[in-house]
């Protein structure tokens, strides 16, 4: 338990909050003989107690006094060198609460005696205002000399040793080999080591055994996955749009870019540049365009009635929040409505920053357009198809006398053309969802009765005539339907997802769908494309008649029964409420009204005598005729086949959201963040003013300029922010504990020189991420035991001085990976679309527009790593959520590490873990020696990397025997248990034995030790 805090030290306290250990606050004292440090000791004090009224925010400023700007402060309330003569001291030290600052109504505690003394000393020492430490570019500090020269292995250790030395602490001994390899594997790959690897490492006496292990892990393709888990939280990667209907969008290529970048050790400045502005790089590659999808990862809406302007403002703010938090550790979010209260970010900074992204093409409201990104292999196929298409097209364009004559005949026939429709009267009409389909006298079908969410209508006609070239479906309004229909949805709409035709049981393809009107995004072609997710709808023309026409691919033969199937898959009763069918035998093309007239210029050209037409008109008519001429059907078919092949390749190409630059929107300062208020200044892109100015002369700065500044030496934040986060990955907490706030409200670095040394080392290494990881994990600091002695725990409960390693629970994704890896189920496949592991039924119950059903994956995709889990923002997979995975709605630089009952329930009962246990049990039986102690020992080695103690052996042995006896008598229970999950039960397994070992395996997978990295 932590000691009580010594109150006297509070004024100079460095607050350190650990998510990982049971400790709290450790005072980093600054000796009385050292000058007072403004940035570390005074500014946080003033910021907390005074800035709210006497700080950067001009809107709330009182008495025209600023304490954040020296010039103003020393002209009014501070007399440098004379604390007694300074009005500031008089007010903060006032005995009478009525005079004392901060005033009682501010709810801020008065300064303590020690704090006041500190302020006095600072003023007496000259009241120097040094800048906030994080806003000064880092310089490489000298590596300190230390007494114990044997311990340090690299620069990191010397800084750490110096800190410990000052505290009178000494480092813990190096952890044992088996702990080290497990720690390294979990830290660098998020996966446990195989027992053979652990054995080999434990037995390797070579001096460079450890270094070789680190190199092997750094070279593993799973390293990128491990790093991606962290980065995807920061960049808020998810598979859905987040707002309202929270629909799917494809962005998994971005995830794969991140994995690839870390695996290939892409220099971090390039990594950042590609994300902010990959599309703007000259000759942007496919991966660079994919990387620029970073700017599209934000939450977007498709909600009907959402106001574009409001959402554009949300998107602007989202990008500022994320980019500033991800790359600068800045809480710029505060400056959306007012100047930042504590840091020098102004509202102008906020909106100027937003303006960098004003060129990104996107929909403010609605489904975002996906960009096809064919793989290199697909690109090659497309090029080949394009050249074949060009060759065939030549044949189509060739002019012959026969063709000219045919065209003349066609032109004549058009003069008298009119399509006759004959109503088809159904012999029968059924609903799969329980609705009642009533056939009226005129062939109209009126839908009545129950209103199912989805429905399939089957309409049967008998003895139909031969030669049918097209079918017409009329959607008919009706007063009794909502909005007069013609659909049964609450707004009168319907979505016809699929129309299928068969004659006497034989399917007849439908082609060339046309409609009098189609809703945006619901073109009628979707009704015959075989895809249940597309379909024909008619908003906003509800209450009106619409019709669609489908050509038959070939003239119909006379049929005894013709069956038309109308599928409505959208949900929420988007089904037809009243409709009628007709047929025609007219010559193709047969089109819906309005859609059947020729393009206007062709009609105009036809009206002119052939010899009077100008060349454009002649060409246009000839081109059109070629598109329908029966003589060219063969060539067209050839062309269509090639086009179809091309389309198939394109359809098979993955898509993503990427940045596409267009002319920038106007961005204004929104007073108080109010998007309705257009009175604010129009702003151009700019970095926060106090950090400098981009020099682009008259040119409007772009995202690429932003990226160049971001990764330049003058930006004081990026390198520090990210090395700190790397540090957190390998030690459990950052050097700056607030990984997401490097402002004055963030905590101060426990080892400021080390942080700067790491930052500069990184920049000078060429932003080499693996170099930094290597540096950290090969340090003696990293290799220490995580076992705190009693004394150490008391003296440094928060492990601020790093006299031991941290120990912490695995991240949510790795809890899963670890169990799957131990069982042997884990798929090593890297990348690709997100996957769906088992999930409790009905968890997506509340998703709407459309309603969705979660269908889990089978085979290999069921056993993929946690980071590939489908990231549904509004309903993140409950097992991940229980272990503190982020919903990725906002930037998460630091996940909470909590400990809840739900976590235990997941490990005990989630089918993923039960299945992993029974497969682990089979593995134990398969891979270990035949007797029971060997099996238990094997299980321990595989899961925990160590041998069981005799007592542990005993407990598991007893459990095994007890459950074996029970299962041997309960065949039904065994059967049920072994049926959890889809993995096969091995041939020849003895079921009761397997079931009892499953109990042992479940126990081991539930151990705290199993999900903890030591």
């Amino acid at each position: 338990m932590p000691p009580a805090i010594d109150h006297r030290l509070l004024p100079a306290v460095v607050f350190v909050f650990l998510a990982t250990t049971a400790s709290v606050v450790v005072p980093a004292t600054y000796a009385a003989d050292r000058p007072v440090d403004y940035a570390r000791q005074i500014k946080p004090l003033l910021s907390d107690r005074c800035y709210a009224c006497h700080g950067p925010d001009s809107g709330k400023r009182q008495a025209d006094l600023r304490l954040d700007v020296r010039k103003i402060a020393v002209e009014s309330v501070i007399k440098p060198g004379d604390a007694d003569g300074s009005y500031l001291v008089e007010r903060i030290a006032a005995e009478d609460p009525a005079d004392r600052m901060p005033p009682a109504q501010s709810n801020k505690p008065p300064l303590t005696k020690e704090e006041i003394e500190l302020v006095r000393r600072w003023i007496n020492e000259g009241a120097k205002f040094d800048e906030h430490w994080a806003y000064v570019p880092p310089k490489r500090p000298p590596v300190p000399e230390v007494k114990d020269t044997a311990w340090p292995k690299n620069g990191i250790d010397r800084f750490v040793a110096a800190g410990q030395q000052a505290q009178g602490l000494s480092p813990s001994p190096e952890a044992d080999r088996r702990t080290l390899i497990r720690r390294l594997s979990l830290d660098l790959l998020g996966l446990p080591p195989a027992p053979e690897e652990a054995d080999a490492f434990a037995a390797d006496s070579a001096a460079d055994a450890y270094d070789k292990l680190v190199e092997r892990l750094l070279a593993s393709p799973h390293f990128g996955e491990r790093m991606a888990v962290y980065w995807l939280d920061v960049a808020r990667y998810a598979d859905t749009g987040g707002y309202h209907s929270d629909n799917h969008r494809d962005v998994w290529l971005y995830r794969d870019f991140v994995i690839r970048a870390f695996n290939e050790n892409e220099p971090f400045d390039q990594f950042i540049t590609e994300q902010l502005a990959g599309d703007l790089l000259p000759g942007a590659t496919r991966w660079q365009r994919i990387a620029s999808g970073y700017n599209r990862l934000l939450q977007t809406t498709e909600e009907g009635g959402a106001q574009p302007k409001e959402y554009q403002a949300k998107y602007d703010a989202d990008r500022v929040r994320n980019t500033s938090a991800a790359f600068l550790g800045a809480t710029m979010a505060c400056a959306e409505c007012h100047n930042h209260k504590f840091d020098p970010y102004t509202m102008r900074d906020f909106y100027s920053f937003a303006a960098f992204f004003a060129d990104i093409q996107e929909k403010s409201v609605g489904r975002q357009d996906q960009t096809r990104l064919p793989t290199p292999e697909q690109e090659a196929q497309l090029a080949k198809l394009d050249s074949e298409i060009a060759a065939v097209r030549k044949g189509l364009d060739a002019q012959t006398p026969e063709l000219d004559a045919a065209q003349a005949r066609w032109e004549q026939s058009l003069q008298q053309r009119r399509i006759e429709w004959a109503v088809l009267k159904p012999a029968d009409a059924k609903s799969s969802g329980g609705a009642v389909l009533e056939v009226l006298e005129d062939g109209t079908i009126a839908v009545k009765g129950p209103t199912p969410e989805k429905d399939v209508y089957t309409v049967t006609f008998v003895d139909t005539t031969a030669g049918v070239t097209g079918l017409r479906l009329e959607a008919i309004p009706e007063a009794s339907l909502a909005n007069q229909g013609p659909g049964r949805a609450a707004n009168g709409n319907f979505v016809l997802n699929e129309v299928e035709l068969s004659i006497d049981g034989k399917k007849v393809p439908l082609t060339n769908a046309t409609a009098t009107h189609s809703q945006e995004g619901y073109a009628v072609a979707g009704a015959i494309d075989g895809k249940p997710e597309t379909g024909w709808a008619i908003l906003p023309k509800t209450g009106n008649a619409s019709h669609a026409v489908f050509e038959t691919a070939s003239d119909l033969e006379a049929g005894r029964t013709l069956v038309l199937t109308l599928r409505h898959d959208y949900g929420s009763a988007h089904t037809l409420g009243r409709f009628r069918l007709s047929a025609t035998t007219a010559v193709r093309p047969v089109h819906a009204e309005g859609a059947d007239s020729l393009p206007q210029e062709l009609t105009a050209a036809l009206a002119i005598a052939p010899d009077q037409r100008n060349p454009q008109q002649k060409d246009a008519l000839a081109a059109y005729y070629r598109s329908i001429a029966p003589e060219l059907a063969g060539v067209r078919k050839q062309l269509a086949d090639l086009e179809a092949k091309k389309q198939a390749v394109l359809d098979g190409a993955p898509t993503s959201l990427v940045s596409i630059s267009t002319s920038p929107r106007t961005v204004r300062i929104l007073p108080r963040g109010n998007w309705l208020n257009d009175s604010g200044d129009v702003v151009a892109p700019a970095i926060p003013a106090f950090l400098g100015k981009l020099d682009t002369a008259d040119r409007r700065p772009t995202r690429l300029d932003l990226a160049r500044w971001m990764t330049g030496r003058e930006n004081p934040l990026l390198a520090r922010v990210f090395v700190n986060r790397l540090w957190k990955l390998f030690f459990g907490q950052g050097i700056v504990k607030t990984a997401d706030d490097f402002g004055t409200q963030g905590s101060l670095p426990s080892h400021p020189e080390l942080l700067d040394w790491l930052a500069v080392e990184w920049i000078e290494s060429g932003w080499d991420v693996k170099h930094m990881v290597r540096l950290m994990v090969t340090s003696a600091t990293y290799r220490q035991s995580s076992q705190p002695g009693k004394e150490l725990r008391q003296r440094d409960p928060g492990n601020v001085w790093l006299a031991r390693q941290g120990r912490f629970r695995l991240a949510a994704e790795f809890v899963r990976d670890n169990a799957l890896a131990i069982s042997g189920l884990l798929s090593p496949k890297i990348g690709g679309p997100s996957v769906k592991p088992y999930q409790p039924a009905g968890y997506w119950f509340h998703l709407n527009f459309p309603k969705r059903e979660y269908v889990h994956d089978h085979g290999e995709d069921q056993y993929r790593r946690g980071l590939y889990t489908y990231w549904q923002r509004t309903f993140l997979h409950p097992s991940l959520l229980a272990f503190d995975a982020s919903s990725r709605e906002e930037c998460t630089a630091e996940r909470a590490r909590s400990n809840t009952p739900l976590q235990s329930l997941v490990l005990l009962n989630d089918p993923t873990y039960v299945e992993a246990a029974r497969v682990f049990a089979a593995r134990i039986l398969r891979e270990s020696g035949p007797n029971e102690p060997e099996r238990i020992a094997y299980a321990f080695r595989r899961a925990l990397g160590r041998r069981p103690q005799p007592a542990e052996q005993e407990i598991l042995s007893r459990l095994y025997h007890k459950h074996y006896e029970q299962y041997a008598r309960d065949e039904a229970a065994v059967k049920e248990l072994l049926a959890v999950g889809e993995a096969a039960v091995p041939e020849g397994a003895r079921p009761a034995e397997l079931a009892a070992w499953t109990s042992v395996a479940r126990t081991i997978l539930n151990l705290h030790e199993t999900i903890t990295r030591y």
Partner: protein
Amino acid sequence: MNLDQLIGIRHTRRAFLGHAAGIGTAALAALLDPALLRAAPVDPRLASLGIVNPLHFAPKAKRIIHLYQAGGPSHLETFDHKPRLAALDGQPMPESYTKGQPIAQLQGQQLKCFAPQFPFQKSGASGQEICTLFPHIASIADEICIARSMVTEAINHDPAHTYMNTGTTISGRPSMGSWLLYGLGSECEDLPGFVVLSSLGKGGQGQPIASRQWHSGFLPSKYQGVEFRSTGDPVHYVGNPKGVNRPQQRDIVDAAAAISVKVHDHLVIGRERVDSFRSLGLL
């Protein structure tokens, strides 16, 4: 567990959560004031299991039930009588009312006033005006508080739900229930302090809702609302796996616990141990 340990735990949680919640160091210094920790609470009624300790007021309420009725009848039809609105029924909405307001898809259409469809009645000694469709609520008019002062800037479903439940339209913030649990704590050591029951309206739920409406945001996930479901397991993963009976499940829990290595904390909801927070921060 003795008092020192308890205090230590509180203290740890507070520091930990204080940080996680982004509370400034000033506020924390106050929270961490050792005087508060050392001195016995002045009034035992003000003792708290949450971060606010001692409580600012002696609590009267034991629990809070928040019925969040997305898609329910309008306040204008239920508890917020506007006589002027009734008088203007059928007339165009005054421009002073609509000018500059976000009115979504109604933009550009003529907006008309619509009077309440059922009369209101003064109820109880307090004379609260309540729609006559709610005679039972009217009968307790003097025992309930009706807040008629609420305003919102969010007019679309999604941000409005988020605003109503978290206080901001920006996603990723803790919900009200999470804040309450965090601030006031819960007497239930072994059961979730914040539970959510979601329902489906009679006519089918028309709008999506999102778990962010009971999410703990940047607070640790233990403050998340635990959703009780009407189908399947009432709580995710609460049921034993098929083929494992309750004593067997218990055996596994006990075996894991006995393997001196501390089993994952809080193994089963409802178990009677008080050290549920012991490993918090010790992971």
